[in-house]
């Protein structure tokens, strides 16, 4: 370049030049839609009306947020939701106690403390006398989503960890098994839900057949309020096991063989070695998998939409499905956007946690 006396790009200029295509795409398809969504959430915005007449929207400030999350005569009490708030209080006491005992790092203590405080605070809100939520379905939907995440994330993490530990061997059979377990990951949600709808079917499903073989009465998985969420969680675990398993396998292969030999001489084999050597060395991978899964599963939509249609009686209604219905069935785009911003905040928090934990040595 320099030979012919041509103008040479500095390193910074070259960097910007190479980054430009990405930055443009990023701005156009992610930053702009996000800002636009936030802007929409500040308006009373009917999808159809605005489509035909761009002026048919009205700036309403934070009214949409109030309409979604708040109500009339909302009161706060320490005993409004004893189970959640009790758990939160225990968590608060525990975080203080563990810090005093020196068993918890500062970061973990703060994380536990903040989560516990939120558990005490948020479920305490409830409609007082003569009061009611403006949107009766929003908070139960958030609750359903939390329950889904709370079941699916540990489910995926634990089963992926166990599978990875069992398959961490360099044999051909293990290679085939790994591929098989990963295969479900490449299926689309439509196929996965179809497979599991058949599996769960009380007439022809595999599970029903097995139950009948052992003399039981088949469960109506998808239409029983007690089992519908469990069914969705099971299908989800089966579907998203692969990536977590691959991450764990990578983590496991990072642990040197020598350490296991030293452990064998130190009388730590099998389960003991797993507990004292494998798990502590996988801590970072576990954190990564958990946070990735949390972010992923907060956005659950397809499983609920296709398997149970949010039912029975709204027990599997989840946040993204509610946003979708509010926006595109009820045409309340402003309110739907407000909910989407709320979801964004939740996932943003977990992304930040992931970022901080990733930096910690």
């Amino acid at each position, binding site marked *: 370049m320099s030979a012919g006396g041509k103008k040479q790009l500095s390193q910074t200029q070259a960097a910007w030049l190479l980054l430009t295509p990405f930055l443009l795409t990023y701005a156009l398809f992610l930053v702009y839609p996000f800002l636009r969504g936030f802007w929409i959430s500040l308006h009373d915005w009917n999808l159809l009306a605005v489509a035909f007449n761009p002026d048919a929207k009205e700036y309403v400030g934070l009214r949409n947020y109030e309409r979604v999350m708040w109500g009339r005569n909302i009161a706060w009490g320490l005993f409004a939701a004893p189970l959640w708030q009790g758990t939160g209080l225990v968590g608060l006491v525990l975080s203080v106690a563990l810090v005093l005992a020196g068993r918890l790092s500062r970061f973990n203590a703060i994380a536990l403390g903040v989560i516990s405080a939120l558990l005490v605070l948020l479920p305490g809100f409830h409609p007082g006398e003569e009061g009611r939520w403006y949107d009766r379905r929003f908070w139960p939907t958030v609750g359903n989503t939390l329950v889904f995440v709370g079941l699916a994330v540990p489910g995926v993490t634990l089963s992926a960890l166990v599978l990875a530990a069992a398959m961490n061997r360099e044999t051909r059979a293990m290679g085939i098994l790994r591929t098989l377990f990963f295969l479900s990951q490449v299926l689309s949600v439509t196929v996965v839900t179809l497979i599991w709808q058949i599996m769960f079917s009380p007439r022809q499903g595999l599970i029903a057949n097995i139950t009948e073989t052992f003399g039981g009465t088949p469960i109506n998985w998808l239409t029983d309020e007690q089992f519908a969420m469990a069914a969705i969680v099971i299908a989800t675990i089966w579907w998203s096991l692969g990536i977590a398993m691959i991450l764990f396998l990578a983590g496991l292969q990072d642990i*040197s063989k*020598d*350490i296991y*030999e*030293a*452990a*064998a*001489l*130190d*009388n*730590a*084999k099998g389960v*003991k070695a797993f507990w*004292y*050597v494998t798990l*502590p*060395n996988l*801590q970072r991978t576990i954190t990564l998998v958990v946070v990735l899964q949390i972010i992923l599963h907060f956005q659950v939509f397809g499983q609920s939409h296709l398997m149970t249609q949010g039912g029975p009686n709204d027990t599997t209604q989840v946040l993204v499905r509610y946003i979708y219905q509010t926006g595109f069935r009820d045409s309340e785009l402003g309110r739907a956007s407000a909910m989407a911003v709320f979801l964004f905040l939740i996932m943003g928090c977990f992304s930040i946690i992931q970022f901080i934990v990733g930096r910690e040595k």
Partner: protein
Amino acid sequence: MSGVTLGNVIKRYGDVQVIHGVDLDIDDGEFCVFVGPSGCGKSTLLRMVAGLEETTSGKIQIGPRDVTRVDPAERGVAMVFQTYALYPHMTVEQNMGFGLKMTGHPAAEIRQKTAEASRILKLDDYLERKPAALSGGQRQRVAIGRAIVRGPEVFLFDEPLSNLDAELRVEMRVEISRLHKEIGATMIYVTHDQVEAMTLADKIVVLRLGRIEQVGAPLDLYRDPDNRFVAGFIGSPAMNFVGGRVENGAVHVPAFGGPVRPEVALPADGTAVTLGIRPEHAVIDRSGDGFTVELTEALGGVSYTYLTAGTGEKLIVEERGDERSTMGDTVGLRMEPHRLYLFDKDTEARIR
């Protein structure tokens, strides 16, 4: 405390046999070094004693106990690995106490034993650190401490100093030697470094291709090797070898341009032999001829002169004093007949 006995020990991986019937007695409290080139099976043999490799056939005894099929943790051995193999998530103190914790010893006893080990190894200032915050030498100390804490009957070292720099290696070598005197336990030590072998061992076991070539005290192996391999392996720089043939009661060596008469019982005329002479036992004769000086390495106290004979065979000669050969010189060699070693060219066995 106990010795270790190997009886016709064999190791096979599928069709490939790597240890071919090893018989060995290691006495109680002895420092035994397995030495040999890469792939000779020395590490495999050590790992079989540890129980980390299964023994295909034969018998391994520690003291009076047959441990051939016993779990590694129950053999009463502790091992120090080349890569240290410390638990990265534990502090120095936890690393050293882990074995006792796993066997259910009370915390007070573990603390007392780790304190004792850290005193011996001067690790007191590092007990709360994790391995990542230690230097290579310190990590190896911790690995040794972990072995000491378990109070084993036999210590096993698998090339423990290979990952250290030269200076630390000497320091740790002295330390391991001191440790052996202080503890008095049986130790088996694997290395490919013959200086470590010579300086540490009570008994050296020279291995090649899964067989024992010779067992003996370091100086016995140096003075009286059984075969050409041991003669070449022990001693630094290695012994020089030149080809020859027995003729008329003398050994005719083309490289020397004439017959030599080593003080051994010569085989029949016509036998092809290899003549061995250590670099420190040959003397350069500046007025002689027959060899060209290729290179000299001056190390201060001694220098090594690389010679090429008329036959193309190469030799190294150690010179002391200030006078040194220069490149391109033509020189001769003198040697005392009783310093010459003679080997059968085909079987490589020593002719005594």
